[in-house]
């Protein structure tokens, strides 16, 4: 199959580019295609959600983009530089159990800061304790935190090393629906103040429409980009407005197609 040439030159503010990313896994001697010809450009400071049926390869794509897996073919470049492995400039936040249970809240936030001077480190920790509303829990261990606080802690630990990009892999998937709603608000608040590029994997349609600048719809396995929706509603978004519901229904329709193909 001939590879389609990139017709448009890259926009100047592109942060991350996936080009013809394919991923094959060997399983029982057979090769299974998980990702097929993924092409996507993410702008600096953009909030992109990846949605798709469960098991379609969303997490695999995030692992490729964050450098934990090498694509079978194709490439991922960030600021024009090919990704060759995980890097503290881009932090992956896991669904749950990502925080270190043997460290306190402070210890977790400061985990990636061991090369800073103590004063600077403490200042950075204090800043993110405050930003993620963990005041009063500095000396607490994760086992004594609620699920929502643990995820706030994981985000704080990620932000503390000052990454350009945050990869979030269903970060609120294990939380109850009210906490999830609160956490989305918190994430938008820090995204707006800190302006990082965010790639957010979810299978929750509402979550995607509430958060994203663009929603990338992946098909079921092998995952291909089936559609990209731009959600041009300013934050804070009214989740019962007609515009919001139109976007949501549009997305639902597109996912519905994805489920039946």
């Amino acid at each position, binding site marked *: 199959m001939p590879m389609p040439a990139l017709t448009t030159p890259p926009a100047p503010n592109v942060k991350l580019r996936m080009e013809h990313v394919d991923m094959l896994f060997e399983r029982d001697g057979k090769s299974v295609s998980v990702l097929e010809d993924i092409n996507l450009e993410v702008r600096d400071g953009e909030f992109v959600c990846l949605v798709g049926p469960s098991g379609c390869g969303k997490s695999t794509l995030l692992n490729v983009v*964050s450098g*934990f897996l090498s694509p079978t073919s194709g490439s991922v470049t960030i600021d024009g530089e090919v990704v060759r*492995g*995980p*890097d*503290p400039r*881009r*932090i*992956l936040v*896991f669904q749950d*159990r*990502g*925080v*270190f*249970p*043997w*460290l*306190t809240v402070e210890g977790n936030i400061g*985990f*990636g800061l061991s090369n800073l001077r103590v004063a600077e480190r403490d200042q950075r920790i204090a800043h993110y304790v405050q930003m993620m509303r963990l005041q009063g829990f500095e000396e607490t*261990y*994760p*086992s004594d935190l609620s699920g929502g606080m*643990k995820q706030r802690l994981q985000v704080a630990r990620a932000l503390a*090393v000052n990454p350009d990009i945050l990869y979030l892999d269903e970060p609120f998937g294990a939380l109850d629906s009210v906490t999830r709603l609160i956490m989305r608000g918190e994430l938008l608040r820090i995204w707006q103040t800190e302006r990082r590029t965010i790639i957010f994997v979810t299978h929750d349609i509402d979550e995607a429409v509430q958060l994203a600048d663009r929603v990338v719809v992946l098909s079921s396995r092998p995952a291909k980009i089936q559609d990209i929706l731009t959600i041009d509603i300013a934050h804070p978004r009214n989740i019962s407005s007609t515009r919001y519901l139109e976007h949501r229904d549009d997305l639902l329709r597109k996912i519905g197609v994805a489920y039946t193909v």
Partner: protein
Amino acid sequence: MITLSRPGRWERFFWPLLAAALLLALWHYSVVWTATKVFPSPLSVERGLAELLRKHVLWSDIGDSLRRVAIGFGTAAVVGVPLGLTLGWYPAVNQVVNPVLQLLRPISPIAWIPVAIVFLGIGDRAAVFLIFLGSFFPIAIACVSGVSNVPSIFRRAGRNFGLSPAQILTRVVFPAALPQILVGLRIALGIAWLVVVAAEMIAVDSGLGYLVIDSRNSGKRYDLVVAAMLLIGLIGLALDMGFRQFEKMRSVRWGFGHES
């Protein structure tokens, strides 16, 4: 009647004490009813214990046993923990060494006594070697499985934050495996205490094991035998309870039922 209220404070002590008292009574009356000439009653054991305490050898016997355990168990920990961490960290090396470990592990340290005496002679070194053997395998194996059970999510987080492999081992894998390592150490300490008694019956002429066998050999003093047995039990219990204090350290408590 079933109630949801927690048992009262007094009940936590009352029932175990009652059980102990019943057991002592059973022991006492069994001795009386069977009219045994050999097995001592609780009262004569108590007198035997008092006699041992008056004779100052008891303290040096306890000291000798504890010293042997400290050296044998300590060496096993110092060798076993790094070795186990290394094997867990390099699965390829573990595949080579594991069959040997698994073969040696089920051999009771008692079976090593002849070998120990041939190489180390009769004396402290043989006893310490047996304790070392008895505690080394559970420690090494706990470390191997502790390391391989560390969730990959922790290692990946470590890599993501730019840690070198050595830093991942010390800052991620070791603290993540520490609860399981502590369990291995605790099991090993219990085994060390079992082995020291056996080793002292054969290889040396001091310590609590020697006290047991010597009380029997020099005049069939079964009151002293049972008194020494009780002491062995009490000290073993104290060692275990002492070691359990480590499980309360804040940085490992998550691994002991306080699931995060």
